[in-house]
Structures are given as C-alpha cells and as structure tokens.
C-alpha cells in the first residue's frame, strides 16, 4: 500500500474505531478495578460471549443488529452478576494471585462453552448498514465503523452521567475511595460490588456487539482484547477513566500506524515493548497513584 495522505487518514479512522472498542473494554475493567480492587482477566471473554449472543439474537430472532446488542447487554450483565457472586466475591481480599487463577479458570470455562454451543467457525453479525460506505476526501469508510464510534461515545457519556450524577454512582465513588468508611456511611458495599461488576460486564457486552459487527469472530477472540485493554489501563494508570480513554485512542491509532509503516506482525510486540518501558520507569503507570 502506498503511503499517501488519504491512506494515513484512513488508518487513523480505522484506529479510532478499533480504539473505541478497546476503550469500552478498558473502562469496564477500570471501573471494576477502581471499586473492587479486582482485575478480571476473563473480561474479554464477556466480549466474546456478547458477540455470539448478539449474533444469535439478530440471526435467529431477526432483530436489528444494534437492537440485539441491547438485549445481549442485559444478558451479559446478568452473567457478570453470576460470575461475581459465585467466584470473585469468595476470593476478594485474599492473595492477589487467586484472582488471576479464578480468571484463568473462567477463561477456560467461557471459551469452551462458546465452542460447544457455537462451534469453531468464524462468524460475523449481519449489519443492516453493511455494504454502505461513507466517502470523504478520497477515502471510504464503512458506516458501521462510524456508528461504532458514536455508540461508544454515547455509552461513555451515559456511563459518566451514572457515575457523576446518580446516588449509585456516588456510592461507587465512595466505595472506591475507602471501602470501610463507605460501609460505615450505610452503603451496602456488596450490592455496590454487584452493580459495578454488572456495569463493567454491560460495557464489555457493548464492545462485543460492535466487535462482532465490524470483525468476524470465533471463540478465541476474547484473549487479545483483554490483554490490550489491560495494557491500556496500566499505561493510563489503574483506576483513571481519563487515562483509559487517552490510552485507548493512542493504542488503536499506534497499532494501525505500526501496521501501515512497519509490518502487521509487529503491532502487539511494539505495544507491549512500550508498556514494559513505561512500567520500568513508572511501576504504577503514567497517571497511576502509588497506592496499594
């Protein structure tokens, strides 16, 4: 591919769309970490499950793909609640390694259940906007990617309002600051944990639906986005939502630019090299505080 102004433009827009999906995933991970001090490595598997659920709903029930995302959001939020109550709640506050172990077990469970139900073939959600392109200044981009960007912006605004303006959001912020004090103030911390996890799962579900519309997916698709989302929030600093947004955009665009200028296979290696360098210099991320 020749490197010209339009191709760079195209790459940037692609990076933006991909970055938006990572941002949703990273925000979900981040809110769970912020409130519960828990890292769910199986977060990407929720994305994968949601992609499959949206596919099933839109194919078998004939629902519009974007409406199907809303339905799968609710289902995945319930799955999230189930996961939190049955597994993570029991290891919370024990050794940090236990959370990694439980997540690994969940990854095995989710991926293989998906494989049993939906098989090993790659699928893609049929979009009502498929085949439609938006043209400007000589480059074309599918409508789905543009819509994805707006859906992500809408989801993030709704999420921000929930955190900043509602009582539940206030309780979540209080819990994330000092859990015990929040408990003394009459906040039901366990309920807040449940809501937080459901919220994070719902964000992952939106990301999964969009991912399934833009890319084809199979049962193994969850692993890499989790790692990338995690790398993004570590770059931005654990618990910082702003850091996640900036990091997500940077990551998506850098990955696409690296693919354009160097070679597709270098994308993730370069990103991880950057992550390692950042962590060597600042062990708690760029914007991270030296808590914990």
């Amino acid at each position: 591919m020749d490197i010209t102004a339009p191709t760079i433009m195209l790459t940037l827009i692609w990076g933006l769309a991909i970055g938006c999906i990572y941002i949703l995933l990273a925000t979900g991970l981040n809110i769970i970490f912020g409130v519960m001090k828990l890292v769910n490595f199986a977060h990407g598997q929720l994305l994968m499950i949601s992609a499959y659920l949206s596919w099933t709903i839109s194919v078998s029930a004939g629902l519009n793909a974007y409406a199907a995302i809303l339905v799968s959001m609710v289902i995945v939020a319930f799955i999230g609640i189930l996961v939190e109550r049955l597994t993570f709640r029991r290891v919370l506050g024990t050794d940090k390694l236990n959370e990694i172990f439980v997540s690994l077990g969940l990854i095995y469970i989710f991926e293989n259940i998906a494989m049993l139900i939906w098989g090993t073939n790659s699928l893609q959600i049929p979009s009502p906007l498929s085949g439609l392109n938006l043209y400007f200044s000589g480059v074309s981009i599918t409508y789905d990617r543009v819509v994805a960007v707006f859906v992500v912006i809408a989801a993030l605004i709704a999420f921000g309002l929930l955190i900043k303006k509602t009582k539940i959001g206030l309780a979540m912020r209080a819990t994330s600051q000092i859990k015990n004090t929040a408990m003394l103030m009459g906040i039901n911390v366990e309920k807040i944990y449940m809501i937080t996890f459901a919220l994070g799962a719902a964000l992952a579900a939106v990301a999964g639906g969009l991912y399934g519309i833009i890319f084809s997916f199979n049962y193994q698709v969850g692993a890499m986005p989790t790692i990338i989302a995690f790398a993004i929030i570590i770059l931005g600093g654990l618990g910082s939502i702003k850091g996640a947004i900036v990091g997500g955009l940077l990551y998506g665009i850098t990955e696409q630019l690296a693919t354009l200028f160097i070679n597709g296979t270098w994308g993730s290696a370069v990103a991880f090299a950057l992550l390692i360098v950042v962590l060597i210099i600042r062990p708690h991320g760029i914007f991270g505080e030296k808590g914990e």
Partner: protein
Amino acid sequence: MEYLERKVNDMEIKQKLTSLLHSRIFQIIIFGLAILVILPVIITDNFFLYVLTLICIFSIYAASWNFLANSGQGSLGHAAFLGLGGFSSALIGTSISNGINGLLGTVIMPIGALSVTIQILVLIVGGLISAGIGFLIGLACVRLKAWYLAMVTFGFSVIASTLSSQFDAITNGINGFAPTTLVPRGFPFYILVLSFTVTSIAVMYLIMKSRTGLAFRAIHGNEEEAKMIGINTAKYKLIAFVISTFFAGIAGGLNVYFLRFVDNSIFAPANSFLPLIMSVIGGLGTVIGPIIGSVFWVSIQQILALPSVADYLHSSLGGFFPGLSNVGPPISLIAIGIIIVVIVIFEPKGLVALLQKVYNYIMLKTKSKAEIKPK
C-alpha cells in the same frame, strides 16, 4: 577451637544425613523412583512411556513456575522461557551435531556416550541462555507486583513470539524445524528426562529449604516486612527469577527434543498458563504439588484423547453439539476450568491438601477401630 567447631559441624551434618536416610519420606521417595525406573521395563508400552515422559517434563516446568510463585512473583509469560530454552538448545544441538558429522564425514550422528553428553550439555546451555535472558527480564520485574508483573511477563512472551518469527532465517520459527536426534526415543530418553526431573526438583527443594528459600517465603508473606528485617528483596526476587527461568528453559529443551519439533507456537499463552494451572491444581508452594498437577493434567488430556473414549463421547454427546467433530477437548477444558475455580475457592492448597485430609481421615478411622477392637 576452629577445628572443634568444624568437627561439631561435621557431626551435625552426619546426624542430619542419617536422620534423612532413615526418615519415612526419604524411603518413600527412593521406592517411588525405583518404581518409576522399573515400571517402563515391565510395561513395554510406547503410549505409557510417552505419557510418563510428558508428565516428567511438565513436572519440571510446573515446579519452576511454582518456585517463582513461592517468592511472591506470579509469571504469566513462562512460555517465553520454555521457548527460549527449547529454541536455543535445539539450534545449538543441531549445529554441534552437524559440525561433528562434518568432521567425521558421516551423515548419521553416532549414538553413544558422546551424543548423550552433548545432549545433556546442550540442555544445560539452553537453560543457561534462558536464565541469562531471565536475569535481564528479572531486572525489569523486581519492582513490579501482582498484575503489573503478570502483564509485563506476558508482554515478554508476546515479544519473544514476534522476534522468533521476525528472525526466521536464524530460528526457523514460522515453519518450525526438527532438532537432530541425540538420544533415541523411548526408554533411553525417558531415563534422561527422569534424571533431569529428579535433579531439578531436588535442587529446587533444597534451595527452598535453605536460608535463601526462607527469604523467598518471607518476601511472599509480606514484602515490606521482609525489607524491614534486612532482606534485600530485589536481590532475592532476582535470584528466584533466574533459577526459575533456568529450569523452565531446561523443561523447554527436553520438550523440544521429546516432540522432535519446535516452532513459535511454543510461545503461545496457553503454554504460559499451563504451569500455573498445574501448580494451582496440585498445590501451590509445595514440592509435590506441581508433580501431582502435571499427572492430573496429562492424564485427563490423554484419557480423553484415547480413541475409544473420544468415540464414546462423540456418540453420546455429539448430537447436542453439531458444530464440533470432537467434543472431548472442550469438555475436559471446561472441567479443568471448574476444578481450578473450585480449588481456589474451597481448597487453596490444592489436591495435596485434599489427599492429606483423606489420608488423615483414613488413618483416624483405622486407628480408632484398632483401639476399639481389644475391648
């Protein structure tokens, strides 16, 4: 005076040795080893030998991960060192045997004491290279904790995979290659693997029992407190990292020479998760845990892969899942996932603790019966 002290020391060591020789555990270990050597002679079944060899190799790998976890560092990228050891020992071994073949003018490597020695040396060199890289990576990792460390080690395995495919001219990472055979497959190779397994696990056990091991456990318990009582935590964490990566590299070399093939899929995340899963299932922080874990894992995988079992599963469950040709692997992995979660929640010390409880229960029963009977 000095002489006297030395004599007392010698006596202490002698006493320790005799008590070790007479202890129950030591007898059990010797007995178990004898069985492990003799059993393949009696049961001359290739499949049985294959499974035993695989269990031994994975025991080293899982034990190396467990060793690192014992110093409070959980790695998610141990496949990087498995692959480093595997690639470097395979490449070096192949080029050495090619060189010797050139000198001798033969095409086939003479099998004998020479090739066995080369094999052992090459495996150790592979471990040393892995440990050397491990030292450099460890320097970056000693300041990091929990998931930061997990992420960075994972990142290194991704980078290692990319490098092995980018420098394909040297590594043949994309298409893979077969290393020259130095020790014939079957019983001879099994004995080689077994001796490596016993030595590695014994060395790791002895280190864990030494003052160094005590420092590791102190760091695992509470790093700040360990620092406060004067332990150089960074130094000890680095030591643990280097030793662990050394043995992971040896396991990698053995694995490559056993499978007689290596490509960059050895760096896959699944390989990084494997030792972790084995250690957790078997019992974290114990010597026997990783061994039990690898026995458990390899057995489940191999039993479900048996043609008769696979056919049965397919005929009974295949109808429910039309999208799959083989339902065995996903079902076994779901089971393993559930087992991991259940073990972490209910029995964090793993199968070892469970077996111990069962053993205690049986002993209690028999004892109480024996006490009741005379009356």
